[in-house]
């Protein structure tokens, strides 16, 4: 288990009711997302979003280090 900081943006932030939280999680981005999706009712599947680890886009099988900053990136709407 590792301790991580999870950041929430846009509709994920609205659903979670917070911009960030510290969680103790297993070493899997996919299972963390699935847990959070169930907990907060996120409206997207993992295949529809991107994930960032320590400020960089990564693939879903990336290793989570202790103290990592994780952000799930729902479809963007800048511009």
């Amino acid at each position, binding site marked *: 288990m590792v301790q991580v900081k999870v950041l929430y*943006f*846009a509709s994920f*932030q609205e659903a979670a009711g917070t911009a960030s939280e510290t969680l103790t999680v297993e070493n899997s981005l996919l299972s963390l997302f699935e847990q959070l999706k169930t907990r907060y009712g996120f409206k997207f599947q993992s295949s*529809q979003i991107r994930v960032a680890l320590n400020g960089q886009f990564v693939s879903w099988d990336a290793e989570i280090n202790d103290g990592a900053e994780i952000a799930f*990136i729902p479809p*963007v*709407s800048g*511009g």
Partner: protein
Amino acid sequence: MFSLSDQIIDGEALKASMLHSQAGAFICFEGWVRNHHQARDVRGLQYQSYASLAEAEGEKIIQEARQKFDVITVRCVHRIGELTIGDCAVWVGVTAAHRDAAFMASRYVIDEIKQRVPIWKKEHYREGSSEWLHPNA
């Protein structure tokens, strides 16, 4: 150079910063806040970003444009925070010796920014509700 700004975008000042003696073409794209979205009346909007990643990804797009097209300077500023109708939400400026490269690079930058940079728009509707937009999901 890509940057985020929580202040009103000054297009004239940005344009002045692009002046270059080798430039024969300057293309500027401004994205403005409009008063409607899919038949709903919009009174304003909020942009939120994952700032560190947005700046890194935005800068990557600028560098890609510089490699793909024969340009001199490429610059983009994207607003965050609360905006009202008519505000400039995003400014893209490109200089090049000739117009083709400037047109193509500016189009590339705005299209890639809309696809890849972690910035989200929340529309405030005239009837009172607000909604985060997540297109192509």
